[in-house]
């Protein structure tokens, strides 16, 4: 008597949710489980700036309604953390000591916000924007017309800056090497884009490298909530301080499992790790680029979704290589507006 196969997807982001759908389409009888840290089903992080346009109900953010998953027999384990993976026994151990056996495993846990070492002590005073909960918290704390001091300024942050400016808030960007991440720009180009940001309405402070921030303090009563002090001694006040220093892959639970990890999980063009039953997709993996002879990340919603789909297909018998679905070029349009493929999501 054959028991149905059980495929597990870790991560319910763009890659993970697509993968689950594809897995269900490809194997009607398999058990498909999605594990996510989030208390909510899949929503687009790119939608989060909507909280500044009056949207605070999570029901407005879900990409698929809750019943979608049960209708498609995709078990979604929310608010669940994976402790580690035993790839020999093909077992995932969850934080609460439950063990799940899998036939094929897809790691699509994405990336979490990176915070430089020197700023880690100020973490409690800063506000993240990586989840629905964090987004709502910022929207509650930021007063009308309030000021956001943005550190770093990756594309996710700059996307948020657009909305903040548009909704009557003020943004002060402390620019540095992470501004425009993951785009890499030459100096002259950079100056142009900085100007474009300023035209957009963002106040840009060009400091030197990270480390120029000496302290972040809580403001006095009646004053602005935060004060950022620079090494030079100058300072800037704001209502919230938000770090946008790019993403690092969430791979902690895969350490010691035997699959190769550099910064992210290393995968073949078919998105398979060094373990034949473990695949990876999205911001968590580095894919082998034969032409450039190195492993590299691919960002962007279209890329990530394609990765989820292909990984799922390859987990169920196919052998298709991932091909980049979007370019990664930041450019200015004729009217001086910034266009980035990472801002195109639909």
């Amino acid at each position: 008597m054959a028991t149905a196969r059980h495929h597990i997807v870790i991560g319910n982001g763009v890659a993970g949710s697509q993968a689950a759908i594809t897995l269900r389409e490809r194997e009607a009888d398999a058990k498909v489980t999605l594990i996510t840290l989030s208390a909510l089903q899949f929503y687009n992080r790119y939608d989060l700036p909507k909280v500044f346009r009056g949207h605070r109900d999570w029901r407005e953010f879900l990409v698929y309604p809750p019943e979608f998953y049960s209708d498609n027999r995709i078990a979604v384990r929310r608010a669940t953390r994976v402790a580690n993976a035993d790839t020999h026994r093909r077992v995932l151990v969850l934080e609460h000591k439950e063990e799940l056996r899998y036939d094929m495993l897809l790691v699509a846990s994405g990336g979490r916000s990176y915070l430089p070492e020197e700023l880690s002590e100020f973490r409690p005073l800063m506000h993240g924007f990586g989840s629905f909960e964090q987004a709502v918290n910022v929207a509650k704390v930021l007063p009308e017309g309030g000021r956001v001091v943005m550190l770093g300024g990756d594309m996710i942050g700059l996307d948020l800056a657009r909305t903040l400016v548009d909704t009557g808030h003020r943004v002060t960007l402390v620019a540095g090497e992470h501004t425009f991440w993951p785009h890499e720009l030459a100096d002259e180009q950079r100056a142009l884009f900085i100007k474009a940001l300023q035209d957009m309405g963002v106040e840009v402070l060009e400091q030197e490298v990270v480390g120029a921030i000496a302290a972040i303090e809580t403001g006095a009563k009646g004053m602005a909530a935060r004060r950022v002090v620079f090494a030079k001694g100058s300072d800037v006040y704001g209502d919230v301080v938000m770090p946008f220093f790019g993403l690092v892959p969430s791979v902690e639970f895969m350490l010691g499992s035997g699959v190769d990890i550099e910064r992210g999980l290393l995968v073949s063009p078919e998105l398979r790790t060094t373990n034949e039953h473990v695949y990876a997709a999205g911001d968590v993996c580095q894919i082998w680029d034969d032409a450039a002879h190195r492993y590299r990340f691919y960002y962007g919603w279209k890329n990530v979704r394609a990765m989820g789909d292909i990984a799922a297909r390859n987990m169920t018998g196919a052998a298709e290589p991932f091909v980049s679905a979007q370019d990664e070029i930041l450019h200015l349009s004729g009217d001086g507006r910034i266009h980035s493929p990472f801002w195109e999501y639909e």
Partner: protein
Amino acid sequence: MSNTDIQISICGSAGDGTIAAGDILRRVMADIGYRVICFDVYPAEIRGFGKCIARLRITDQQAYSLKAKSDVLVSLNDSHAIAHAGELRECGALIYENTSIVAIAEGGHMSSHVQPGHLPYPVAFRTLSEKATGANRSRNIVALGFIAGLFGLPAEAFKKAIAAKFKSKAAVAASSVAAFDAGYDAGTQRFKLDDVCFGKPTATVIPGATIEMINGNAAVARGALDAGIDNFFGYPITPATTIMEKLASEMPKHGKRLVQTEDEISAIAATVGAGFAGARAATSTSGPGLSLMTEMLGLGIMAEVPAVVFVSQRGGPATGMPTKTEQSDLNIAVHGGHGDAPRIVIAPTNVDGCYRCAGKAFEMAEAYQTPVIVLLDMYLSNRYETVVFPAHPPFEPNMSRKLGKGENGDGYKRFALTEDAISPRAIPGDKGCMHVVTGLEHNELGRPSDQTDMHLAMSRKRHEKLKAALQHPNFTCHKRFGDEGAVDVGLLGWGSTFGECLEAMYKAQAAGIRCAAMKVVMLSPFPAEAVAAFMDDCRQVLVPEGNYQGQFANLVKANLARPLTSLTRPTGAPVRVEDILDEIRRLAALNQQAKAA
């Protein structure tokens, strides 16, 4: 209606402190100013790790039934709580332990049973408890703290209730407060995704009145005490035992006397004896005991002696289901015992009613010189409601028909045939009025007589005198709710089922059905006129009750020749609002069809 209507279920195993947590929670809610109805589920065995559920519904205006779906579900033990995950409504909060000491089999943790619409809140109860108190025994208090923090409930009210609950154990009280704080901090920091919202409580202040969270049995005991009960004789039986236990500890404080007898027959016999001697006396029992008592009830009826019997029904027949509720002792309460033996039977529909009926029973027993049965059930006995107790107990001290001047002396007629069939009553100690009460048929002097005319006259007396009970002062024998005048569907309910009837009626009205509900509290004598008038207003009459035979429906049919639909549900659990509502809809649809045809 209510701007707060939240039902919280806490599910765990015996030993997790589930019931204790529910106890604290309901006290807090009542203290804050909400109204609460609470019905816990206990494990059937004394020892072991059986399932416990503390379930309470919190509202502005007192509710009389629990909802089919809860708004918050807390699991203190997944092995028991998983089966109840489906009880949580969409967008409700599901709170559970997220750490474990031992490995859990696949599917053995609540996280895999969270349904699509639920919002999950895994909390490290064990860790928080250990950090705060050094042991993991306070997980239930941590959970309470978490609830308070998450829903923004006042921490002080909880700490007050915790201190009160553990007032005799200072160390436990202190560590419980620490555990509460740990949970509270965790709760305030957690992002609230569910839409469970506590509205502002309405603080109704009635001068001199006290508000208490109390269950049916405690309310009965309180009613008896407030009515000045002198003697209680009882025998333990589930689910009535706590009435006796409460009285055992309270009555001596008031100089009153309680004796545990060797069986139910002795209990009712002593009660009748004490009643003969002029005391306000009572006993309490359940179905099996009532069966035993029926012969002696007959003596009380024949001898026209006051006696009060509190009966809490449970699953029957025979030993039945001792820890489950049912409404199947109506027959024996109203008719039990040989001969034409009429008595008064009153059946409260909620906990406040338990208090009032208990006290009024003594008035009626004295006024109409007869045994009175107060008929409740396990659901009422064990369920908690917020009850507002008036400053002065609403009970009359002595309602005996006193002797006039000329009635003393030789030939005192204890059973004088008067116009209202109630004779003036002397008690032992009254000079010159010696008489013997007997179970034999007798004449006005009380001497045995088997003459036809006398038996007819006395039978008539015993039946007629009770009719006055239907007009007993300050007592609600029956009451109508809902739409006035002609309605599509009318509900006739009694006892604890009436709470569900009301809820179903409100829902039916909201769905556009003209609907009314009548509760019948006095089952014997039967308020035929009032019920008939009600039934005449209804195109369809639905009689829901928790027994198999439709005992109340049969009682209605026996008294009135009007059609009705009987809805019987002997499940050992309260009749469900959904079942009643479905039937209302079906009957309303029948009405439509009939109109169209």
